[in-house]
C-alpha cells in the first residue's frame, strides 16, 4: 500500500544520489544513466510478472503495446499514455503529455537538460516489462517541453 508520493521521492533521490556519487567518485556520468536504466529493467520485469499472472494471453505485439499504454501505465503512473503511434514495422512511439515524474520539475523548457536523467528509469521499466513478455526491444526517450515526453520502442527481431 505504498503511497505514490513515496515512489516519486524515492525515484528523485535515486537519480540525485547516483549523480552525486558519480561526481565525487569516478566522474563517469554516462554510467549513471545505464545504472538507472538497468534498475528500471529489473523492476519492470518483476512488475509485469506480478501484474499479468491473471490476465489473458496477448494476441500480438500491438496488443502488448496497448497493454503497456493502458493498464501498465495506469498502475505505475495513474494515467494512460496519451498517444500511441506505430509504423507497424516494430517501431512504437508512446507519448505522455503530463509525465508524472516530470510534472513537479518544470512546465516548459527550463531544466530541459536534466530531464533525460529522470526518464532513464522509466525506459528500463518499459524494456524490462516487454522483455518478460517475450519482446526484446530498445527504448529511448525524448523531451522537447516538460512535462510532455515521448518514449520510442524499437522491437528487435531475433
Amino acid at each position, binding site marked *: 500500500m*505504498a503511497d505514490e508520493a513515496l515512489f516519486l*521521492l524515492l525515484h528523485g*533521490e535515486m537519480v540525485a544520489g547516483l549523480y552525486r556519487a558519480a561526481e565525487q567518485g569516478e566522474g563517469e556520468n554516462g554510467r549513471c544513466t545505464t545504472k538507472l536504466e538497468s534498475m528500471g529493467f529489473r523492476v519492470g520485469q518483476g512488475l509485469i510478472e506480478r501484474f499479468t499472472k491473471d490476465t489473458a494471453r496477448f494476441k500480438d505485439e500491438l496488443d502488448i503495446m496497448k497493454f503497456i499504454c493502458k493498464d501498465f501505465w495506469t498502475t505505475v503512473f495513474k494515467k494512460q499514455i496519451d498517444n500511441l503511434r506505430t509504423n507497424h514495422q516494430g517501431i512504437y512511439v508512446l507519448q505522455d503529455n503530463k509525465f508524472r515524474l516530470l510534472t513537479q520539475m518544470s512546465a516548459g523548457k527550463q531544466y530541459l537538460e536534466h530531464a533525460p536523467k529522470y526518464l532513464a528509469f522509466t525506459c528500463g521499466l518499459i524494456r524490462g516489462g516487454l522483455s518478460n513478455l517475450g519482446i526484446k526491444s530498445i527504448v529511448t526517450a525524448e523531451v522537447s517541453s516538460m512535462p510532455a515526453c515521448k518514449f520510442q520502442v524499437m522491437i528487435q527481431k531475433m
Partner: protein
Amino acid sequence: MSRQGGRGTENKKMNSELFTLTYGALVTQLCKDYENDDDVNKQLDKMGYNIGVRLIEDFLARSNVGRCHDFRETADVIAKIGFKMYLGITPSITNWSPGGDEFSLILENNPLVDFVELPDNHSTLIYSNLLCGVLRGALEMVQMAVDVKFVQDTLKGDSVTEIRMKFIRRIEDNLPAGEE
C-alpha cells in the same frame, strides 16, 4: 474509467510492489557500487534523510495534524498516521524508556522486504536503513533531533522488525546572521 473502481485495491497493491521492487533494485545497485555493507548503510541513511526532509511537507499538507506537544504524541502520529499513510501498516509502540525519550516501533511485517532474502555475505547490511534516514530527516524539519536505528530485523531471522527511536534534543530555529 469505470474499470477503475474494481481495480482500486489491486492498483494499490501494485503500487506497493512498485516501491518495494524499486527499493530492492536500488539496494542491489548500491551493493554493487560500494564494496562494504557499512558504506551501503550510510548511503541508504543519507538518501533516506533527503527523502524525509521532503516527505514531511507532503505529510503535513495531507494529514492536517497540529504540532506535537511531547515525544509520546510524536510517536503516536508517526505510527498511526505516518506509517499508515505511506506504507499502509501501523506499527505498535512499546518499550518506553523511564525518561520518556526513547521508544520502539514494532513492525509485524515490513513492506520493503517483501520478496527479499539477505545473502550470507551481506550479513551486516541494514536493508531497510532508508527508513531510519527518512524518520530522522522528517523529524529534523519539525525541530526534533532524533537517533533512529534498527534493533531487530525479520531479514536477519528475528520474529519482528524493531526500530528504536531516541529523542536527542530540540533544534532551536537559527535566525540567519544579521536578522534579530
